[in-house]
Structures are given as structure tokens and as C-alpha cells.
């Protein structure tokens, strides 16, 4: 066993040239995930969370995308950089070394083929054996993800399954070849809350069972708090804060994270305090402002001397051990900021 984390992303940049200009969807992204570890990526739409994970999966069309940096998978056979490797090599990693589940389980399954056929197809990519063996494995997987009566339901079609059951099928398909890395992109967003808790539990159980590295992409800070070991907060294409779950929730260092945590009503807080909203909206990714991307919405940028926020983009600096933040605000001002917004 190596001690290296399974996935190492180093200075990853993804941009899309368009008629209006270059869309810088994902910038200076670096992070690692080890086996058995859950990294949550939070951010709003357009913050670059999905774009980053699609790059790791090698799913961007290289002709239309400018990608630089590295995404290294530390396989038993040696490290492979997904970004620079040939399409053919990456294809052989997909589904086996790394796998992905998507938000909408309806559009991710093919309506014309039975659940069984779709699972067998995924299985037969990496396994020798006839259809019967594949079907046996498919039933085994469906059983594992909690589909009752798997032997019968394997022959049914996606429309015969409910949303939660379809997401279970997606999970079974993603895991059928024992991947080392699972990327779950908003896996419960389309589901009802009682079904969401079933699926989150299932993902947690599966992670233990397969000892996977898990990247969970979501905008729901509640979901993150329940499952994450570490959290990356993304804003306008960059990681603005990164740290252990408790650091992020109890000692947030970036004004955006602080604002986000206080803009959501919390269940159990019954006195109707006015919500602390973050004013304005995220910047366009085409002409990112000079300096800090969050400056226009930040309540504290005037406390940084020398107009630094407007002129210089902050770097992702470590504040304490394993806790990074991309902000110019001095430590003392930061503590005040936390108090002012949160009242604690």
C-alpha cells in the first residue's frame, strides 16, 4: 500500500472558449482525496464544482476545452495523469478506477434498455464471462444497494422505478467494477428528503464496503455536514476555502463561507431572526474581476488596507493546519467578522 492519496489534483484550470470570450470555469484547483475519505465540494451554480469533477473523469471534449494542470490517480500499477493521458487510457480508467453518479437518475439511465442490460454492459467492459455471469453480478449489486426482489426487478425498465430506486440503480452501476474513486454530483438533489436520507446512508455504507475515495458535490450545506471529512468551498471557479468539516462549520475563515452558513435557516432555530443574505450575485466567469472575485459582495473588503482586494487576487493560504482560505482579511478582523455576522 502506498501512503499517497488516491487522487491528487494539482493546479487544474478549465476554460471554455465561446463567442463572448473565454469562460474560466475552474481556476487554480488543487486538492487530494485518499481512499476511505469523503471530500465535499460546495458552491453555487457556476462555481466550477461540476466542471472540475468532469475534468477529473476526463469527460470534457478536449477540442472545445482548454485544460491545464494535473489530476493524478495513484493506481497500484503506478500514477496516471488523467489530464495528459490519451483518451484511450482514460477510457480504461473510467468505471474501473473511478466512477461517477449524476444528479438526475431519470436522464442518466437509458429508457429503452432494462436495468439488467445496462448493468451488464458496465460489467462486461472489464470482466470476461458470459451474460449469465454478468446478470448474476447485476443482481448481486442491486441487492447490495437495497433494491427489494432484485432477481425479478433486474429485468424491469427505468420507468418502472421510482426516483430513489433509480438513484440506487445508478449507484449499483457505478460500483459494479469496484472503483477506487467515486464522484457523486448532487446525488440527492432531485430526491425527496426522506429518500435523500436513505441514499446518503447507502453512499456512506458503500464507501466503507469498497473503501473508496469519495467526492461529494452539492450545494446543500446540511448534506455536507452529515457526510464530509473535508470540505472545499468554491466560488467563481476557485476554491476559496478548504479544511476539515469542523473547521469549515465552526471556524469559517472566508467571508463567503461565513455568509453562506448564516444565510440558511436552521431547523430547530425557532425565533424568526432575519436571515443574513449575501447581497448581489456571483460575477460572470467571462470577465472575472481583477483582485478577489468575491469583493463586490464582501462586507469586509473595506477593512483590508491599500485596496488590496481590488488589485490583487488572494492566494489560498493556510491559516491553521490543513485549513486554507483565499482572503486578504487579517486574522483579527476575521474574528470580528465571524462575530458580527453570526452573533457568536
Amino acid at each position, binding site marked *: 500500500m502506498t501512503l499517497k492519496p488516491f487522487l491528487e489534483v494539482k493546479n487544474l484550470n478549465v476554460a471554455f472558449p465561446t463567442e463572448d470570450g473565454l469562460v474560466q470555469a475552474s481556476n487554480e484547483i488543487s486538492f487530494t482525496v485518499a481512499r476511505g475519505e469523503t471530500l465535499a465540494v460546495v458552491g*453555487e*451554480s457556476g462555481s466550477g464544482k461540476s466542471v472540475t469533477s468532469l475534468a477529473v473523469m476526463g469527460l470534457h471534449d478536449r477540442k472545445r476545452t482548454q485544460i491545464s494542470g494535473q489530476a493524478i490517480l495513484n493506481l497500484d500499477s503506478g500514477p496516471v495523469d488523467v489530464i495528459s493521458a490519451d483518451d484511450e487510457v482514460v477510457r480504461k480508467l473510467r468505471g474501473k478506477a473511478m466512477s461517477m453518479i449524476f444528479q438526475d437518475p431519470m436522464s442518466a439511465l437509458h429508457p429503452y434498455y432494462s436495468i439488467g442490460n445496462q448493468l451488464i454492459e458496465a460489467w462486461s467492459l472489464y470482466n470476461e464471462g458470459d451474460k449469465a455471469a454478468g446478470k448474476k453480478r447485476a443482481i448481486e449489486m442491486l441487492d447490495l444497494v437495497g433494491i427489494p426482489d432484485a432477481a425479478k426487478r433486474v429485468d424491469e425498465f427505468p420507468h418502472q422505478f*421510482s*426516483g*430513489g*430506486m433509480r438513484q440506487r440503480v445508478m449507484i449499483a452501476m457505478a460500483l459494479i467494477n469496484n472503483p477506487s474513486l467515486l464522484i457523486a454530483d448532487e446525488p440527492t438533489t432531485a430526491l*425527496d*428528503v*426522506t*429518500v*435523500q*436520507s*436513505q441514499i*446518503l*446512508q447507502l453512499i456512506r455504507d458503500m464507501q466503507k464496503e469498497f473503501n473508496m475515495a469519495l467526492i461529494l458535490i452539492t*450545494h*446543500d*450545506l*446540511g*448534506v*455536507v*455536514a*452529515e457526510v*464530509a471529512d473535508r470540505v472545499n468551498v468554491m466560488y467563481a471557479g476557485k476554491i476559496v476555502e478548504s479544511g476539515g*468539516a*469542523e473547521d469549515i*462549520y*465552526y471556524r469559517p475563515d472566508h467571508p463567503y463561507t461565513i*455568509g*453562506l*452558513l448564516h*444565510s*440558511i*435557516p*436552521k*431547523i*430547530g*432555530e*425557532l425565533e*424568526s431572526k*432575519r*436571515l*443574513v*443574505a*449575501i*447581497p448581489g*450575485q456571483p460575477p460572470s466567469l467571462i470577465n472575472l474581476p481583477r483582485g478577489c472575485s468575491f469583493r463586490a459582495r464582501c462586507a469586509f473588503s473595506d477593512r483590508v488596507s491599500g485596496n488590496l482586494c481590488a488589485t490583487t487576487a488572494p492566494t489560498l493560504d493556510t491559516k491553521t493546519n490543513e485549513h486554507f482560505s483565499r482572503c486578504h482579511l487579517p486574522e483579527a478582523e476575521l474574528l470580528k467578522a465571524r462575530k458580527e455576522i453570526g452573533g457568536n
Partner: protein
Amino acid sequence: MTEPLLRIEGLQKHFATTTGGAFSKVKGTVKAVDGIDLDIYPGQTIGLVGESGCGKTTAGRTILKLYEPTGGKITFEGQDITHLKPKQMKPLRSQMQMIFQDPFASLNPRHTVGTLIGAAFEIQGITPEGGIEAEVQRLMARVGLNPEHINRYPHEFSGGQRQRIGVARAIALKPKLIVADEPVSALDVSIQAQVVNLLEDLQDEFNMAYIFVAHDLSVVQHISDRVIVMYLGKVMEEADKVDLFTHPRHPYTKALLSAVPVADPIKGRKRERIILQGDLPSPVNPPAGCVFNTRCWKAQDKCRTQVPELMQIGKDPSHRIACHFPEE
């Protein structure tokens, strides 16, 4: 207490399911809403919560008579409006408005913001003081939009701004009642708080009553005075907010609350949670007896045969649940 603004008694909305085709026959009925009672007073917010398919949206729309009710009675300011024709409803429409979930689908892409918001005045044949354009600009400023953008089209705005257009349109005629159907669920987290705050400010200013339809329990908890929990067309539990969230008595409410993820890593993981088995049954063919019995951990034979009535429980006289075996 004074007369309620709106009183709903035993409201029902059933849809016929058909076999389809030229000689379509009625196959059965979906009881999307099957018996809701509610009194709402000026300045009050009632939250209608439940999972998809529970009938909360249908209920909201039937209350505004966008659907013809199948049964029950709707009284608005003392007037029975249950079976009013669309033409007879028209003058009342200025009093009751709706905000929709999807700010992309609910605004006509070919109309400018000015036309969209101004339509309210034209339809009702009202000319506000200073003219429609000036009033529209005043409304835009009130909801936090730049009045100079009056000639822009919906696609030129972000999701949060579009929802503000929807809000401006709804409040244009100073209605007494607004049904808001999932008004923030399509918005990003940081934008949600902006719109929730806007709705609260407007309520304070105009003393409007809100029926707030949503699946997000934390938002409902924040904005509501009273909450109604629905499941498969039926009311499971209704109570004042504090009572419902601190002391839920229906097993479904309890499970629903425990399923909401808490944004607190230590508390959230220690919390006891009830994970319901299975999915929502089909509303075409709901379970006999209590509709929740197939997923309830307390279900007994009685629950599978007898429909529990909605009955008062506990100290609060307005706390009602429909359950044979309530939680302590």
C-alpha cells in the same frame, strides 16, 4: 377572533385518470387533495409542506381556483367563491395572487419586464397614479431591481432577479393573499435568503397573508406561523410552528423532521434519525386505512383498515393530527 381572510373547509381536488385515446374511459381518480381545512388571517403565513406528490401544489392552486375544486368550500372575505366562474373570479384576482417556483418558465420570454409587471394593471383596467410605467418602475425598485431595466427581457436577468420580477408582478395590485409555490427552491443558497427576506419585508409592509408551499422544512420553519403537513393528499398534522417543530406528534412529521440534514457536523451526526423504508406509494392507488401505514414503523392492523380522523391533540387547541398511535 375576527373573521379570517380566507377559510377553506374540506377542500378536495380529484383528477380522473383515463385510458387515453379517442374512446378514452375513466380508469380511476387521483385524490390529489382530499380534505384540507384552513383559516388564514391578514399578515399570517401558513406553510404547506410535504414530499413530491403529496398534493401541496394542487392545494395551493385549487385555493386560488386555478383548478375547479371537487368538493369543499372556499370563503374569501365572507364570500363563497367555491364555484364562481372565471369571469366572476376576475375582480377577485387582484386580491389573490401567486408566485411560481420556476422563474424561467413563469415569465413570457417575448415580453419586457415592463409589460410583464404592467399586465396586472391592464387586465384589471386600473390606471395607477402617475401612470403604469411609473408604477412599474416604483415596484421594480421596491423588489430590488434597477428601474432602468424596465425594457429588458427575462433572459437578461439572473434566476434571483427573475424571481423578483415574479414577486413584483404578484404584489402590483396590493393583494391580500399570495400563494407562493416553492418560490425559492430553484434559487442558489445565497440568493434564497435575499428572496425570503424580501417576502418578509413586503408582508410587514402590506399586511398580506401568505400560503407558502414548499418541501424545504427549514425555510418553512423560518417563514411560517402555522404549518400543515401533507402526505398523499391528506393532512397528517397541523399546528402552530413552534408546536409542530418542537413537539411533532405524527410519526410522519417526526420522520420528516429527522430526515432534514443539519448544517452542523457534530450535532448533525449525533442526532437520532428515523430512516423511512421505501418510497411514497402511488397516489393512483393509495394504501387502505391510513395512507402512511406502508412506511410507518408503528403501523398495526387498525392502521391498515381504518382511516384516522384529523383530531385535536395536546394543549394547543389548534394542533391536529390524523393518527391512531400518536407520538408522545
